[in-house]
Structure formats: C-alpha cells, structure tokens
C-alpha cells in the first residue's frame, strides 16, 4: 500500500526512475487482532551518484527535477495526512540525502485504517490509489486478503515515458513482506513464498512486471 504513496508523487518518482535502479520495500507486521505496523522504504542508494547528478539539474527530458526541499515537503505532507487519519499512530519518517533512502512507518489499529489512509492519499494526490489495493482481515477465520488491480494510470504514465527512461526500470524492484503472529497455513500467490518459520510471506518482483501487470500482488493468506 505504501508503495502507492511513494508512487503518488509522480514527478519525484519519474526522476527517480531516471536513476536506473531503486528498491521499494513494504513490510507489514500483523498482530492477531488485526492491528499492526507498516514500514515502507525507498532506496536509491545503488544509483546515488546518478541521483546526485540529476538533482543538480533543473529538469531532465522535460521532467522537472524536484529539489530536496520539495521532496521533504512532499514527505511532510504525507506524514501530516497520516497523523490525521483515524486508526493511524506513531508516524515516523526519515530522509537520507547522502544515500538517498526514504522511509515512512506507522502503526495501524486495524486494516480498515490502512484502507482509509489509502483513500485519503488518493484524494490528496488525485490518483486512484484505493482502486489498486485493499486489505481485509477476517479475525474469526484468520484470513488476510490483499486485493490488487494493476494500475492503469501507472501503466499509462509509464507508456508516456520515452524508451530510454522506461529502460531505467529494468533494475528496480518491489518487495513486500507480511509478518504474522501465527504461522501461515497457506498463501495463494505463485510468486510469493512462505518463510522457514512459516510466520512471514515475501514477494519480490521487478517494477516493470508490476507496472505491466504481469505480477499481481493479490494474495489470500490463511493463518493457523
């Protein structure tokens, strides 16, 4: 979900996309009552020399390069919205302009809070975030569901990028990790796998596959 937040600032991500390789890691820790903690990390350190060079420019191929101040402001806005969202607490963020790593984390009281949050953000960034991802947790049956539809908007934006910029996504990855208090009985996404202790499910995919829709993040995870 927070992947979408980071995606929302289109201008920023487009510039980051020029930086040839980056990682987005989404980590959600669920408690048995449905509450939990989410942490999202955007890591551009592998291409930090290039990002640093790009940040010196005003625009690249007609895309405005955001300044450090703009990036900080965008993150502050997101934090502000999060803090005002019902069911969200302990909001923390960090920006490391030496290694170009941004993190955002918060606690949520239930999955509905996560869904409200995605809706609030879609309003703020005028993108249909909630249309892509929704979470559900059935506490009685201990089933966690993530519904995901590949974003047509993202695909549209992506096709607008010139070939040489699209190429930059080749070395970009998205990783999602869900951790649970109880062991996982089953999970239904063929690209995901269950950890040895059966308490975590991880899916790592290329950004390109995610945008093209060849990887779907939807999953139904049943817990013991």
């Amino acid at each position, binding site marked *: 979900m927070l992947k979408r937040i980071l995606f929302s600032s289109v201008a920023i991500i487009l510039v980051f996309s020029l930086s040839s390789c980056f*990682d987005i890691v989404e980590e959600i820790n669920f408690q048995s009552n449905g509450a939990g903690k989410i942490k999202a990390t955007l*890591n551009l350190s592998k291409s930090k*020399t290039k990002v640093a*060079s790009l940040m010196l420019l005003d625009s690249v191929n007609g895309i405005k390069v955001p300044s450090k101040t703009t990036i900080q402001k965008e993150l502050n806005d997101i934090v502000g919205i999060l803090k005002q969202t019902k069911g969200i607490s302990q909001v923390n963020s960090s920006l490391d302009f*030496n290694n170009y790593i941004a993190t955002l984390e918060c606690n949520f009281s239930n999955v509905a809070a996560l869904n409200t949050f995605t809706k609030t953000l879609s309003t703020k960034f005028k993108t249909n975030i909630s249309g892509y991802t929704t979470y559900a947790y059935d506490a009685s049956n201990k089933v966690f569901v993530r519904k995901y539809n590949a974003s047509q908007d993202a695909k549209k934006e992506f096709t607008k990028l*010139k070939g*040489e910029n699209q190429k930059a996504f080749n070395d970009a990855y998205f990783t999602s990790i869900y*951790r649970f208090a109880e062991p996982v009985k089953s999970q239904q996404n063929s690209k995901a796998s269950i950890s040895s202790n059966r308490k975590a*499910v991880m899916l790592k995919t290329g950004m390109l596959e995610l945008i093209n829709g060849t990887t779907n993040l939807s999953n139904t995870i049943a817990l013991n």
Partner: protein
Amino acid sequence: MNTKLIFAALLLLMGLSRANAQNHFKKLPADINFLATFDTKNLFQLMDTKDVNATLNKLDFFKKLSDSLSQDIHQIEDLGINLASKSYVFTRLADSITFIGALIPLSDVKRFQAFIPTHKKIQVVDGLQTIYSVDRSIRISWDENTAYVMTGVLKDSYLDREDVKERYGLAENPYYDYYGTDDVMVDSIEAVADATYEYDYVDTVMDSADAFYAGIEDTAAIAIEYDDYDVVSDSNLIMIDSYDDYDTITDNDMLDSIGYSIYENEEDVYQDESNTAYYRWLAQTDSIKDLIVSEWIDAEMTNIITGNYKSFVVPKGFTGKSNKNTVAHYWIKSVDELYQNFMPTGIIEQAFGIGSLSKLKYGYEQANLSFDVDKNKLKLHGALNLDQETSKIFKKIYDKKLNPKMYKYLDKDALGFLSLSINSEAYLKYIPQYIQKYYGAFVPRYQEAFSVGAMLFDIIVDEKAVAKVFKGDNLFVLNGVTKQEITYTDYEYDEDYNYKQIEKTKMDEIPQFLWMFSSDDMRLFEQLLELGVNQEEVLLENGIYKIGKISRQFSNFYVLMKDGIVFLGNDENQITAIKNNTYKPNVDGASMKIAKKNRFAALFHVNKIPTLIEELDLPVSRDLDSLTADLAQYGDFYVISPGMKGNSFQGELGIEFPDKDKNALYFLMDLIERLAVTR
C-alpha cells in the same frame, strides 16, 4: 601594352569598388558611438548565394516572405540589396536622444522599392524617395545605391527636465496629479511646434519647414486618433468585462457594435476618471514625443544624406577594417559612456542621494568585437581599451602565468579545463584603490570613507603574506569518467524474511577532477586540515588528506600539498601517483599551448560529450540522438583571454564545428535544416 592596360583597368575597377564602399562609410557621422558592420561581401564569399537560397527555400522563408509582402520572392537577390558590400548600423548619442541609423547598400533599387507595401505613401524628402512609419518615428529613404534608415529614442532624463517640459508642453503624469491636465495639454501641440526649432538643428529644420508643417498636421491627426483609440480601448475593456462570455466576440461587426454601445454608455466610460486622464495623458505625451522624434530624425537624416556632418574617421585601434573572415564587426566608442547612457542615472542619483553618475568611470574606453568564420571555426574575438591608469592596474594584475609544473596534468583524455592566473598581491593592492577611485568619484559625500576603507584594507591585509598563501594561479582539470568503487545500502534476508541493512560496494562511473593552485606558504591549509583530523572529519594517510563527509554522493576528496602546489581532487589513484612521483603524464599539447598563452582559459572538448553521456548513462531524448552523436565530430569550445596587450584587454570565444562542410556557416545551415525537419 595590353597587360599594362588590363592592369590599369583592374586598378581602376578596384578603386571604384573601394570608392563605392568608402562612400557608405563616409556617410557615417564623425561622432557616432556605436557601429555594427555587416560584411555581406565576406559572408557571401564564404557561402554561395545559391546554397543560402536553397536552405531558405527549404525553411519556407521566401514563401512566408512572399505571402506577407504579396510579392514574388524566390531568392535573396530579389531583395535588391547589394550582397557584395557592407551594411552599417550605428548610434549617435545626444543629451536628448539616441539616434539609431542604418545604411544598407542596394544593387537594384527597383526590386527594393517593389517591397514597399502599396498603401505606403512614398514622398520625396531631401531629394530622396522616402517612407515613414505610421507614427513617423522611423524614416526610410533611398537612392540608387543606398537605403538609409533612421529612428530615435528620446531620453527620459531629458524629458523630465522642467525647462524641457515647459518648452514642449509636456504635462505631469496624471497618476501623480490628474486634475487640470487638459488645460496644459490644449496648447501642447502648438508648444511643441515652436519648441522643435530649438533643437541643435535650427538650420536644418528651417530647410525642412514644409515637411515640418506637414508633420504637425499628421500629428494632430494622430493625436485625435489616439483620443478615439483610448476611449474605444478603455471602453472595450469595460464592455468586454460585462459580457458573460467574451470568447464569442470574434468578428469586427461584434467589436463595432461594442464600440457603438460605448458611445451610448459614455458615463460608464468615464467612471474611472483617473484612468481616462492617464490614457489621455499617455496618448498626448506620446504624440508630442513622436512629433519631436520625427522632426529630429528628419533633421539627422538630412544631415547624413546631404553630407553636412563630418565623416566618421576610423580611430586608432579600430579593428573593423577588412579581414576576409570577418562577417560582422562591432565597435563601441566608449564603454563607460555606453554604461552611463543606458544606466537609469536619474533614478539612482535620486534614490541614493549621490552625485552625478556621469562621473562614474571604470576606465573602459573603446571596444572592438569581431565575428569571424575561420574554416570550421566560429570566433568572437574582441578587445577593450582601458585608460592609462586602469591599464596599469590590469597589467599588474594579469602579469602572472600559470605555474609550469601544472601543465603536465592537462591530460589528453580530460574533458576540459579552466585556468585563471592573476597576481593576487597586485590584485589585493590595487582593487581598493580602484574602487576608491572609480566609485568614490560619484559618491563625493563618501569619498573620504572610501579612502579610509582602502587604507584600512591596505593595513589589515598583508598583500605579500596573502599572496604567498594563494599566489593566484589556478588550474581545474575535468578528467574523464573513471570507474570508482562506491558503497550503497542493500538488504539481506534470512530464511524467516527478517532483513538487515548491509553496506555493499559497486563500481560506478564518476567524473574526476583535479584542482590545483600554487602556494609558497601552506601552513594555513595544513592547520585547517589538522583541525579536521582532530574533529575526525578528515583522515590523514601517507601525507594525503582524505575528506569524506562533504559529499558522500560522489566520492571522497583528497588534498595533497607538494612542490609548492595544493592539489585537490576526487581521484585517489591520481593523487597517490602525484604524491609518489609515479604519475605518468599524457599531456595534450594543444591544451598546454592555450593554458600557457592565456591568463584565463576555459576549454571543453565537445567531441567527448557523447562518450560521457553513454558512460554516465544519462537520459537523452531520442529526438536529439543524431544531434548528440554529431557532437563526436565537433572540436573544442573555448573562452580565452591572454590578458593585456598594450592598453587593451583581449578576449576570444570560439567553437569548432565538424570539419565536414566547406566552413562553419555551411555546417550551421545544415544544422538549422535538420533542426527544422526534427520539429
């Protein structure tokens, strides 16, 4: 005998052609202060007119021109301009006006005349066919050989003078005091009619009295038109505002109907009295100004055509005389004078309560600038003459050459370099004096303060000591990209998908640089770096200081002090090699020659850009791919200055285009064509 005859005939022909060129030159007034010479003869010797016509045709230039002028134009020759001569644009400054004139040689007056729009009234003034712009602020006259163009810009400082306002009946801006302006304006046209006689050109104006009175009639007409215009335009705004959808107002009928309704709603028009008063004032002031300008440019033109003025005599140091590579030359009589002319002196004087800015002198005199085509190279080179005192100062400041020990770092693989050599001792010694002399002069109230300041600076700053620390010669070399190990953050997952952040390394392409400057006293740098070492910001290893925290994104910086030179760079291997005397120079002879000869030089090997873009994997739009690839065939782009030569400060800017066409102009034509196709 025959040979002698032919020789004599050739001499005569040469003499004639020179006489023809001289005639144009001689028409320039002696006291012009700016002259731009466009050498179409040289231009079309460098470029065949056939080729120029072909390019212009491809760009649809003639088609567009033909359409707009309703004339058939297929080639540049159809313009009737003599392409084997020189055109001149010049300005002449007076206290009240800046005249801007042009002399264009003609080859076919009939063709030239054919371009005059049919609705323009051609009249004979000073015996020449003449047309005027609607407001009569531009006059064009022509004879068989020359088209004369003249316009002028009145100086605000002159029009702001009380005696001038009174003479021409110029009213105050009604925004300051809009009551009662009409009374002042009533007689303004008459006043200006009397007053124009008082300009320096009394004699000439007397001669052109007929034209003058015709001018008054015209101007009165203009004034009336302006009145109408103001009412209509002002009202249009009001009426359009009142329309819900003003986009529907598209045709003239509609506008006419608005205009009509305006007169019906006259009360509305005058709702904003101050606005109306302002526009009336503006229109009337403009019409007075136009009348003044039209009179003065007429008189100026008459003086030029009839040869009343003394001819311009080429001053010593003028470099605009025939050089077959020069296509344009610019000459400024006095840069100081030009500064003062364009500086809003009145405003500055009032705002700062300072003395006359006319005293502000930098010591900049004549300036020459030539635009040359030298095979595949385009060059802009010039010289600025300095007065004796400034020249003395500049000579001392720029008497220093680059430390020869630095030359070996001008590597063949470098992307470019920048060098600057000044005598820092002379600089520190003379700059306070320079400021005191040139700025103190126009702020007499603070003259003493400037003096004290200069003295204090002299006492506090020990120029000799500073010059030992920083001698004033610098060389910055931008080396090519080299692979360097950089660290980055990655994640490692265990079997339970717990992850931890780990540091990894990878080889990345990083542009390397080396900056060096001479110093005979490095204690200051040593102590600063030691301070950094104590603060654990700097690491000292084998005599090389490593600064790591300033900019982690790129790489570390390394500082080495050796042989009277301070080296600062980001290539550890290079700095280590310099330290251990194992550096293997691969000197670029051409770069070294430039660095040696000049006090300032910035040079960039343009042909290395495509490789650089590729190595750094920089995104380049596909549309620009072929143009970027072309850069590989370019030569160098450079800006150089050898410093002072005699009493003038010299400089040159140049770019070498690919050596595949006849010359740089052909390459540019081809480039323009290709760009047009891309678009």
